[in-house]
């Protein structure tokens, strides 16, 4: 073995060489006085520098500004997006820390749902209306299926998707869930009879805060020029959007929804949500299978997630419910002949149950055990 350069010897001192290489070097050192001297010199210098750098010290622990305070300040200076992100919480106010966390998980899961919806849309088999002219395909959620995902993967896919074209969210402005006076008013506004739980876990107040979210549509149109610029900017070379995708459009329709929050300012709030099943359609100059292939190739999508989505046999009617991998566990249960997905936090802090019945989707969540949540679900009328 030849003598090693200074950099390699320095890396060896820090244990930064790959194991095999380190072993070879060690062997060489045993037989080479020159390298041993060099190593000794490097070590002496490193020790001196370490002492000097140590003199610079570290921030005195007692003098540190409370981090929460700094974070709040960073968030407040971030501008509108953060303020928007907090809007839902401020609508109800007084959420406990736990509940905020839970809501975040919901939001995460449902953010995923949104992305997954896009995947389902193009995963349709060309049948029924879908086979009609204009390459139009329709999707309607009739059943639910869990897809385990890495939350950061979901954020990335959504973000990347939003950079490949134009998201038209104009119809969503000013359409936050707005509090209403009663369940009756909610039913009237939402256009469907709102169900209420007849049985609540002990200690949960019986009067809910009621809010209604109006129906809305979100669409996404591929913009090739924008997609190219984005992919070039992030240095993505393994993925591209073919030219014929220009103008291809995905639309998602989300019917009105009603949210009931029991004990919103207590430490154990219970959330009951109900909404019509989301539906969607795809149009443009590309075939369905081309669109599906493209989205399943999105750079941020892991092979495991892509495989789960590909394996869904009834794409056109299945709504994937993304569940954060490693953070939540889930199982299927049956309540009065209806299949229910029970998703719970791995640390047993709480969870939610979600199911589909008569073209409505229902969800119940909070810091409660599976049985408590199922009891509430069972009592919904």
């Amino acid at each position, binding site marked *: 073995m030849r003598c090693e350069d200074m950099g390699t010897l320095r890396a060896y001192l*820090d244990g930064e060489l790959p194991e095999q290489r380190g072993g070879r070097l060690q062997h060489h050192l045993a037989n080479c006085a020159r390298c041993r001297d060099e190593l000794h010199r490097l070590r002496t210098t490193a020790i001196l520098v370490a002492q*000097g750098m140590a003199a610079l010290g570290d921030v005195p622990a007692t003098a540190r500004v409370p981090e929460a305070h700094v974070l709040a300040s960073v968030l407040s200076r971030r501008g509108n997006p953060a303020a928007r992100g907090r809007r839902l919480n401020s609508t109800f106010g007084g959420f406990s820390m736990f509940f905020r966390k839970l809501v975040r998980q919901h939001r995460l899961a449902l953010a995923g749902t949104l992305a997954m919806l896009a995947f389902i849309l193009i995963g349709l088999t060309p049948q029924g209306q879908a086979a009609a002219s204009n390459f139009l395909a329709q999707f309607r959620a009739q059943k639910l299926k869990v897809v385990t995902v890495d939350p950061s993967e979901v954020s990335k896919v959504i973000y990347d998707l939003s950079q490949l074209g134009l998201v038209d969210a104009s119809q969503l402005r000013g359409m936050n869930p707005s509090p209403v006076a009663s369940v009756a008013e909610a039913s009237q506004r939402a256009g469907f009879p709102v169900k209420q739980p007849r049985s609540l876990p002990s200690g949960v107040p019986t009067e809910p805060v009621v809010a209604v979210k109006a129906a809305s549509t979100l669409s996404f149109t591929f913009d090739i020029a924008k997609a190219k610029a984005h992919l070039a900017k992030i240095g993505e070379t393994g993925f591209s959007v073919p030219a014929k995708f220009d103008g291809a459009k995905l639309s998602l329709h989300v019917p009105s929804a009603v949210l009931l929050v029991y004990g919103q300012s207590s430490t154990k709030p219970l959330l009951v949500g109900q909404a019509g099943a989301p539906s969607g359609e795809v149009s443009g100059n590309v075939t369905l299978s081309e669109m599906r292939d493209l989205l399943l190739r999105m750079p941020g999508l892991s092979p495991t997630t892509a495989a789960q989505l590909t394996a869904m046999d009834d794409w056109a009617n299945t709504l994937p419910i993304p569940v954060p991998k490693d953070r939540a566990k889930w199982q299927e249960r049956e309540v009065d002949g209806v299949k229910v997905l029970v998703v719970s936090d791995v640390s047993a802090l709480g969870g939610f149950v979600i199911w589909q019945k008569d073209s409505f989707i229902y969800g119940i969540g909070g810091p409660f055990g599976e049985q408590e949540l199922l009891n509430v679900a069972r009592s919904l009328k």
Partner: protein
Amino acid sequence: MVYVAQPVDILAGDAEDRLEAIFNDHHESIVSLLFRLLGGREEAEEQAQEAFIRLSKDRVIWRPREEVLAWLRRVALNLGYNALRSRRRELARLQRHARLEEPLSRSPGDPEASALQAEDIGRVRNALAQLEPRQQACLMLRYSGLSYREIAATIRVAPTSVGTLLARAEAAFRANYKE
């Protein structure tokens, strides 16, 4: 449920969660890094905050965590250097006008020990200041406990060249320090 219909909020909220997670995990280490460079707690915290504000407005926040951290450290160091430069200018101005001499670093506690420590710190800082920026950064990052891989990502060199860069930086530091 309701949130399905709020993709705009979902995106914004997610960015916020992400920022918060990164902040909670790394704010302290960024402050430490800047403290070594600047020697003052308040200044280090101020620059760290600025670095996080920039992160919150940058798309890099969506990249993998490792990349985000490299970006954050890079921005923090640059902010630190800028702060040092303006501080030197300010100091020079003060000295010109009022003949004031202000030590770059102040330590609380025992006055005698503080004086010694301050002298040490002054020498270290001088030795560091004479290095080229990349060498300075390399030393500060290494002695903050970062791996070669993390250093490489921060100062944008190949991981395999960190050993050489570090050895050269240390040799140069030693020469300056002994003067």
